[in-house]
């Protein structure tokens, strides 16, 4: 059963309350991992899995867990799923795991998850709502990191998904500094669009 408020929560996570570009949470892996589009997809999938599963579990057990231990309880749940993802990637995607390194276990400490588990706890809504919220969060996160990953791969190594596009790329873009610069410029462009758009609405 899809209610209107549920759908709204889902859609707002993708654009109006996007975790990365609007709420500014979960930034650490965004900068460190998004050097290629492939890595971004891997990270996006891992984060989405942990986010959706932990969100569902937390919303199911919310009624039995006393308020005092809600943070430790949700952290243990998130840690369980994160460990699962970590070992899964190490077993089946060795190259990816060498690249993601400590950032897979660090998904755990991601403010994104802490924020969202806080939301699942505070909102007295149904499991459907929690699921849609988590799904919205993960889709919004994945879109942004895929965009940043593709741009950094194209600019920084002159390739896309491993296909060489041109020679002599801008090497700084694959370094951490390039990530900071690119996100700064992207946010600037977004701000500019937003101010243009709202000005037009006013007139």
């Amino acid at each position, binding site marked *: 059963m899809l209610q209107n408020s549920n759908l709204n929560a889902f859609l707002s996570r993708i654009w109006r309350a996007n975790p990365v570009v609007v709420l500014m949470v979960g930034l650490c892996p965004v900068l460190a991992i998004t050097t290629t589009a492939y890595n971004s997809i891997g990270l996006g999938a891992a984060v989405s899995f942990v986010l959706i599963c932990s969100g569902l579990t937390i919303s199911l057990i919310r009624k039995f867990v006393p308020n005092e231990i809600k943070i430790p309880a949700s*952290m243990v749940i998130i840690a369980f799923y994160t460990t699962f993802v970590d070992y899964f990637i190490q077993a089946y995607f060795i190259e990816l795991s060498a690249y993601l390194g400590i950032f897979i*276990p660090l998904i*755990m400490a*991601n403010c994104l998850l802490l924020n969202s588990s806080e939301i699942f706890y505070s909102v007295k809504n149904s499991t459907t709502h929690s699921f849609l919220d988590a799904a919205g969060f993960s889709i919004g996160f994945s879109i942004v990191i895929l965009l940043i990953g593709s741009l950094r791969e194209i600019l920084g190594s002159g390739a896309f998904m491993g296909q060489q596009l041109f020679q002599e790329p801008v090497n700084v873009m694959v370094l951490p500094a390039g990530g900071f610069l690119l996100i700064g410029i992207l946010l600037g462009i977004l*701000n500019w669009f937003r101010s243009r758009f709202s000005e037009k609405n006013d007139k």
Partner: protein
Amino acid sequence: MINNTTNPVLIFLSAFVVNNIVLIRTIGLCSFFSMSNSLKSSLNAAVPIVCVNLAATILSWLFYNLALIPYKLEYLKLVSFVLIIVLLVQIQEFILKKVLANYFSTAGNSLSVITANCIILAVLLLNTEYKLDLVNSIIYSLGIAFGYVLAIILFAGMKERVGSAPIPKALKGYPIEFILAGLMSIAILGLRGLFGL
């Protein structure tokens, strides 16, 4: 790469500047951006990070090497580290509320956010990844904590100057902060490869 045979001074230097946790490894950015609004608030973030980091390193090293490795329970590493951090953050909040009520009111609710952020967990995970012994782990974690403090203080200073500078309207706020952090990161990149770190 560092290991147990590396000179302790070099371990500290590697964690402190060459592989700076914020600017090169890009870990702990949430608190880096939200706590650096003034020099004072960045110092407020600095003290708990150093204290909790040190305590968490010692506790988790003991737990990992004396309890998890002998019984082959390495897969519980993440859960146990997280619980150690949560425990320490609760203790620290309690102490600060009792002893330093004044400090607590200025740092406020963001304290638990600062300390529960990625940096501390990252330090513990890196210590186990490099298989450092207890003394080297402590040196490494201190290096990382001071590296964070260095970065956030420099960044707070730059943010105060940029606040009064004429910049394009669209770049105000987060965009210019990211660009500033990128420039700082480029500056620190100049040290890459120093002493083979």
